[in-house]
């Protein structure tokens, strides 16, 4: 039996403002360790909404969410922040690096926040991640002075810094050209193959999704194929 990283049980979500709109209906699935899963579907099918619920950032839903076999539903904000810090890595469509910091510092921040290793050790680990993604030369550059593709790779390095159980991506290639998206896919692929990293990527890029291990397809707030 493979280790379950993430389980979603009967998740419902609706927006109340201005009128009640059902966005997600009875979502059930689980992700096991080492899987490379993509969630696809048309714009507005609720796939991003689902990702934010799975990532614990959105707590306004019905149903149950388990990460690492621990129930996340109903936990306090500070607890969830800690879970995000420790167990989840994020890669967004827009790179969201902190422009006030260098590339290295951006990668280090979640590690420093976790406070599991000393600052020197976190720095060493951050450098290793950057090296792995072949961007160690950028380490001391300011985050706003590097290209889009590079930024996305820095974001991936940041997602990896605390060795999370799962990396979640919201259209991580949505804003990149073909060459750079291929590069990002390569990195994801390497992470699952070499490091047995679990990945859950929301994308509408069909060619990207087809290359992942498993596709969850959504339509109108429901999973239609898994």
């Amino acid at each position, binding site marked *: 039996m493979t280790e379950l990283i993430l389980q979603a049980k009967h998740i419902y979500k609706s927006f109340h403002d201005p009128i009640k709109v059902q966005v997600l209906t009875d979502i059930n699935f689980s992700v096991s360790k080492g899987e490379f899963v993509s969630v696809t579907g048309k714009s507005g099918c609720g796939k*991003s909404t689902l990702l*934010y619920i799975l*990532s614990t*950032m*959105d707590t306004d839903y019905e149903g149950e969410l388990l990460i690492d076999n621990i129930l996340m539903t109903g936990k306090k*904000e*500070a607890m969830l*922040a*800690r*879970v*995000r*810090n*420790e167990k989840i890595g*994020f890669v*967004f*469509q*827009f790179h*969201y*690096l*902190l*422009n*006030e*910091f260098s590339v290295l*510092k951006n990668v280090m*921040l*979640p590690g*420093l*926040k*976790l*406070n599991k290793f000393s600052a020197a050790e976190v720095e060493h680990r951050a450098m290793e991640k950057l090296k792995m993604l072949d961007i160690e030369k950028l380490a001391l550059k300011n985050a706003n002075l590097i290209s889009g593709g590079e930024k996305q790779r820095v974001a991936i390095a*940041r997602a990896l810094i605390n060795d999370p159980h799962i990396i979640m991506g*919201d259209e991580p290639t949505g804003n990149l050209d073909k060459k750079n998206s291929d590069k990002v896919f390569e990195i994801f692929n390497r992470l699952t193959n070499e490091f047995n990293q679990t990945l859950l990527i929301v994308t509408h890029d069909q060619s990207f999704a087809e290359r992942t291990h498993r596709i969850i397809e959504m339509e109108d707030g429901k999973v239609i194929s898994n």
Partner: protein
Amino acid sequence: MNNSLIINIARSLLLARWRQTLIAAIGVTFSITMFITLLSFMAGLNKLLDGLILNRTPHIRLFNEVQPNSLQPINESKEYKTSYNFISSIKSGGSRQEIYNSGAIMNALKKDSRVLGYSPKLTAQVFFNDGAIDITGIVNGIDVLEESRLFHFKDYITEGSATDISKVSNSIILGKGLAEKLLADIGDVLQLTTAKGEQFSLKVVGYFQSGVQDFDKVQSYASVSTVQKLLGKPGNYITDIQIRLKDMAMAPSMAKEFETKFEADAEDIQTANAQFETGSSIRTLISYAVGITLLIVAGFGIYNILNMMIYEKMDSIAILKATGFSGNDVKRIFIFIALSIGLFGGILGLFFGFGLSSVIDQIPFKTASLPTIKTYPVDYNPAFYLIGIIFSLITTSFAGWFPARKASKVDPVEIIRGK
């Protein structure tokens, strides 16, 4: 939790917008500077004005008032005890102005731990004979050393030496106005006639200027024994005992106590000079009000800048939250930013405030009525600096609190989706 990391992030956010930060800090600096300067100057002025009267006024004065006896015979008689008696044309009795048993009273005061010191005093009404005309005046007999120690007598001597009246026999210090009327120089010998018609000659050894012109036109000082001679009284004749207490606030209650204990009239400084207290407290109130207004304005400046910063940094806040910083962490970052602006601006303000008050302290300020004052008075009271820095921290933390709370409530999902 992870304080150094919070501080580190706050510092980076601050330095990334150092111009805005600087402007916010300058706002605080300016208001603290003005707060300190205003209060120091105002307090200096207050002290000066109060000192004009209060320094020279005893906290409690023991004396015998010339007044009709409150115990009239008819009221004492058994027959009329129960009736309401109307008595007209009562005259002040022949009771003596002398304080009875003054030696024993002074001994008792010496032992009283609440009393800082006392000085005996007696006064004589005289006429200074200046050629054909006589000028009325008052000669105060004082103990120069105690009078200087307790009531700053020496500070008001503009020429000559105060101690000379105790060293040179039959000597006198004239009020500046009086000396001008008499055309008396130091070393001159004055003729004067006492109320009882006796003639004396006294040598002028100095002038004093109190700052109150009417006072200087009639008053003069001599030693206690000289005045006793003028009055033809023995060496234990004292009409006033002036008492200075360690704590001025105790004067009213102690005056009552002394009144019964020493069987003399006792007047406390609060009753005698109530208006000064009111004047200085209102001036202080106004300067605090202005100072605090300045700080609140600076607080609004900080509030605005932090609010703007939060709108600018929405993305950063969202990503910090997404990567595991809790709302509380974010709040602490922004409160730290506000507090460091307050602390930095405040400390700088203290220095500038000190500088500006020192400058004011150097500005010449000469007035005929205040002989001892050469420059504008400034009170370097450390309490103002303490209040200044505490208020700057309080206003900035309030100014930081609301934006920080807003930042802590930023929903990362909304920001990330909104793109």
